[in-house]
């Protein structure tokens, strides 16, 4: 079966659109709301959704997602409960779903068991920010076996590493917008033309994430790539509205998608 991420980018290319990838922390404020938020975001224009698997010590996250992870864990979220919500979501949507998580969650669960479940519950890919390219064998053979994409990341410091990483990337390349951790930024000034110059030799879409906080910044970033990833700005709205955040998140997602069409 073709990976949904590939189908998604083919479709977007045909429509001359850029991808909007959105992130929420699963289980924040609860699983029921997570399911509603996913469906609402897809409905309002999200093309791909990342579900954050909360980790006790998320070293790549800024304050917003740290707090969301804490709220979620406090509410009793576990990986198994996230698989349950994905199972339920798959009866309602066929759009790409990814898990963003830390490598220890996969390792402790059992790499084989984890990817077998991903295949069964139709998770299309994983993003693991603390698993660099050199350590990818920790999960890559098992992910490949089950047809789940391990989405690679590059950052402004990657420089000569971009080609090496792009050459083995599937789905899309996650381009970290700027130095630092996740969280909203008022502007992003990275020289993407230079950073992503090697990408002309590779047929893998690039999506920029970390710090994209507004439709204006989404539009600015989209000029350099095939899609944008928005996390903390959405999670802030979930934090404000809690169970009642669904309409506000939907509205924001629609506004983010607008300049990408």
């Amino acid at each position, binding site marked *: 079966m073709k990976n949904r991420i590939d189908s998604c980018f083919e479709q977007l290319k045909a429509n001359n659109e850029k991808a909007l990838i959105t992130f929420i922390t699963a289980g924040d404020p609860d699983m029921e709301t997570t399911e509603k938020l996913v469906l609402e975001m897809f409905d309002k224009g999200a093309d791909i959704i990342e579900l954050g698997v909360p980790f006790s010590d998320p070293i790549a996250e800024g304050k917003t997602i740290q707090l969301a992870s804490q709220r979620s864990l406090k509410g009793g979220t576990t990986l198994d409960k996230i698989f349950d919500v994905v199972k339920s979501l798959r009866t309602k949507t066929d759009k790409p779903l990814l898990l963003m998580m*830390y490598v220890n969650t996969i390792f402790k669960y059992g790499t084989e068991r984890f990817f077998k479940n991903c295949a069964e519950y139709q998770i299309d890919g994983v993003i693991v920010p603390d698993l*660099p390219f050199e350590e990818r064998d920790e999960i890559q053979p098992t992910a490949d076996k089950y047809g789940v994409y391990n989405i690679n990341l590059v950052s402004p410091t*990657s420089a000569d*590493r971009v080609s090496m990483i792009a050459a083995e990337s599937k789905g899309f390349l996650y381009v970290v917008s700027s130095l630092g*951790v996740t969280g909203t930024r008022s502007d992003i000034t990275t020289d993407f033309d230079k950073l992503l110059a090697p990408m002309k030799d590779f047929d893998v879409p690039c999506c920029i994430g970390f710090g994209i906080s507004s439709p204006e910044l989404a539009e600015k970033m989209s000029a350099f790539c095939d899609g944008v990833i928005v996390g903390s700005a959405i999670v802030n709205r979930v934090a404000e509205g809690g169970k009642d955040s669904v309409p506000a998140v939907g509205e924001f997602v629609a506004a983010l998608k607008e300049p990408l069409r």
Partner: protein
Amino acid sequence: MGKVGRYGEYGGQYVPETVMNAVHELEAAYDKYKDDPDFIAELKALYRDYAGRPSMLYYADKMTKDLGGAKIYIKREDLNHTGSHKLNNVLGQILLAKRMGKKRIIAETGAGQHGVATATACALFGLECEVYMGAEDCKRQSLNVYRMNLLGAKVTPVASGTSTLKDAINEAMRDWCSNIDTTFYCIGSVMGPHPYPAMVRDFQKIISEEIKDQLREREGKLPDCVVACVGGGSNAMGAFYNFIEDKSVRLVGAEAAGRGIDTPDTAATMALGTPGIFHGMKSIFLQDEYGQIAPVYSISAGLDYPGVGPEHTYLRDTGRAEYVPVTDEEAVCAFEYLSKTEGIIPAIESSHAVAAALKIAPEMGKDQILVINLSGRGDKDVYSIARYRGVDLVEE
């Protein structure tokens, strides 16, 4: 599997892409300078003239007679400048940072000893210094916070998670990702991504080099047993390293059991931990079935860590070293024992090693030698020990 920095299956470089080039740059710089005669000469001069090395190997006659077993020697890392073994590593890393052209140093600290050592070296070399410390530890070790401020460092309390050492490391790693161009992360233990576990060990192995030389001179032989406390494991790694090939030397690490390994209030990673990947390394960690890192507890802020350096895990798995849990109560009793018996007030961290030695020495022969690595001095702990004993110390 990643090829570099492995101890069996443990170790590795599990860090975000943003810091990978910096980790490689550090690896290259360390490989270049570790055998460089100028680098070694500068470090040796600092060890001698600034840190006060070699540290003394003291024969604890009263303790030996009292316990009635092995001859007990105490390696006096507590007499090292800044009051612990931590400076050995920091001087090495700061010299490296200087050669790499880094202007800003960050560090994490638990008890504050590594933070104080880092602040000290930064004062000496005129470098900007920021130390991350758990908010809870800032309270427990307010004296060290003030010392770091005196030395010109900025201390940033970390209130996330359990507000202890692991959270300080999380925050230091976040800072490192944000300021990678200018900033050198001076990790205080044999943990984190390669090359840190190897580099910190190499800067600490002078402890076992000196023990070996000093005992050869005094006794004409190797020790039979070396005991050291283990949090992340830097003083233990330093005290063990040059004896690993000498199979007759028993190597014992004392870890913090807190209120006991049968309670949730513990930091006994070796007794209760399971394999995991965290803070840049594969090793063993205290965690739940879903890999969430457990909140840990010990009276000792310096041993209050839910993991252990990868080389220690390897030494344990291969049977070369053994690790024993020591409770708060045992450590406090050992703190008091050494103070009264030998007139040496040990750090509460090092008191865990003393407590283990109190059990091991009586079972050894009188012709045998046990060395305790006394990693630090206990002045910083007097308040918390008084509190533990129900004594309220108030200064007017």
